[in-house]
């Protein structure tokens, strides 16, 4: 499709488990962003990639969170030793370099039991 896609759409896991969330940006978009959103709040920035490198990872809450974008296209957000507080909707967005408008995917709803 033409938009940003994210898989899975829903993920239920147990406390302490490892999860991977995938984002497929719009073709040709060099910038990719991860946000997470808790109920009733606006999205919160996690990390921004320009190409393959993380240009800004200041939003990652701790070292359990890690993201990669090895070929400058698809990105994976990895969360180790999940905690109940990690439950949220994880949003991915992409944009053209130099443009502020971001295009968001439908999100992955992560539930940690």
């Amino acid at each position, binding site marked *: 499709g033409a938009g940003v896609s994210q898989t899975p759409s829903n993920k239920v896991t147990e406390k302490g488990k490892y999860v991977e969330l995938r984002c497929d940006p719009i073709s040709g978009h060099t*910038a990719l*962003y991860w*946000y997470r959103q808790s109920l*009733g*709040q*606006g*999205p*919160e*920035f996690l990390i*921004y990639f*320009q190409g393959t490198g993380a*240009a*800004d990872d200041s*939003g990652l809450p701790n070292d359990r969170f890690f993201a990669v974008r090895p070929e400058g296209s698809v990105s994976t957000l990895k969360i180790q030793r999940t905690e109940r507080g990690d439950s949220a909707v994880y*949003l991915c*967005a992409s*944009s053209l370099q130099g443009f*502020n*408008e*971001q*295009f*968001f*995917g*439908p*999100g992955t709803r992560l539930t940690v039991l």
Partner: protein
Amino acid sequence: SQQGEEDPQALSIQEGENATMNCSYKTSINNLQWYRQNSGRGLVHLILIRSNEREKHSGRLRVTLDTSKKSSSLLITASRAADTASYFCVSHGIQGAQKLVFGQGTRLTINP
């Protein structure tokens, strides 16, 4: 970018009425964007207004920007049920970072 503060936090109107939401920000900006989020279409960019623009239109949307007051407003005319959503403003500084910083938004409900 910097966080905008949307006002009101919640707004409920009848279908067909106009809806106005406001946004305030703290430092000088290069541009300001409005986004909408609903369960059907997710988070979607609506409109971007640059610091040298005072007003911009897109369909039933009208955005104004007052840089002297560091504020913006979003007007939706002839509201429809499909306009029910949360609306967020995000402003970018002169050397703003690429990330978007969201506030809590305005929750708009259109009643039939």
